[in-house]
């Protein structure tokens, strides 16, 4: 339910360079952390924790969902304005 793009523009503060700076900062913070979170979830699944194979697959899905949402949000934010 993404109804249009109506960013409340703060006057004089959101030029492309400012948005690019924010994007660079966001990526610098998010990407290494997200990679480490994904690796950790994978390690845990490989170690056999979490019960049955189905339960481990479900746990991997739980781990992947917020990371996939992150990627979508970043892409949408950048293409919004």
């Amino acid at each position, binding site marked *: *339910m993404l109804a249009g793009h*109506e960013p*409340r*523009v703060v006057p004089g503060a959101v030029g492309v360079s400012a948005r690019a700076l*924010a994007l660079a900062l966001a990526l610098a913070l*998010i990407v290494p*952390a997200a990679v480490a979170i994904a690796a950790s979830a994978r390690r845990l699944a490989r170690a056999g924790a979490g019960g049955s194979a189905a339960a481990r697959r479900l746990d991997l899905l739980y781990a992947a969902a*917020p990371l996939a949402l992150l990627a979508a949000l970043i892409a949408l934010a950048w293409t919004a304005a």
Partner: protein
Amino acid sequence: MATRAVGVAPAVRPWSVAADYARLTKPRVVSLLLVTTAGAMFVAAAGLPDAWVFFWTLAGGYLAAGGANAINHYIDRDIDGLMSRTTGRPVVAGRVAPARALAFGALLGGASAILLGTLVNWLAAGLAMAGLVLYVGVYTLWLKRSTTHNIVIGGAAGAVPPLVGWAAVTGELSLTAWLLFAIVFYWTPPHFWALALVLRTDYQAAGVPMLPAVRGEAATKRQILLWTLVMVGVSVLPVVSGAAGLGYLAVALALGAPFVAMAARLDRDAGIAWARPVFSYSLIYLALLFVALSVGV
């Protein structure tokens, strides 16, 4: 000569009954949720929202979240009795009958839907009910007792209030609304795991697979640091989308830096001495971040 009544139950004062029903709603938890609702309303209105819409939205938000919490007291009464933090809760302590807690929660939820639907709009009402269903159905009944990812996925319930606030003002959901949702969503794991570290033995005793109870302190502390970094990154996305400016960017980073520093200290140091400070700061952080968004710095 002193006399003592024998076999007579102590009189229950009406105010203490009311206080127990109020406790069922978890007022302190709900108050932070309402800060995010209010913040979203200010952002959506690009200034002051209509006073009545503001009032009814917060009232409806309280009823929905309070109702969800009351139902949670009913569902979790078996494990609440096993954890020292929750043994004094009204249902576990026997001061409120389980069925009454459930009925009270359902009543509050229903009242919220009617109030928001008729006095605000039906999108806000639907979202508030979605938050209730997420908290009760997805988090409490499904995930809480089945996976260490419980608080990550279940955290979506706590992230709904900004959507309610946004919908109340605009009647729709935009990308910015979802970015506010995301800020709360990614804030929840480090916030909650910091508390769960302190309560690790409680969760172990109750058999609840919270991350620290299953994977231990070191792994949890590392996850807190990683999710804090993600959360600070997400907090700057409103600038990426053009919804906030450089002033907000500076504030978001200034507020995020101590959070990251404390999480790093927690990760680095032996023990969990920094868990409480991380938890306490996370509360201040979220409130101030939404204030910054509200005032449009």
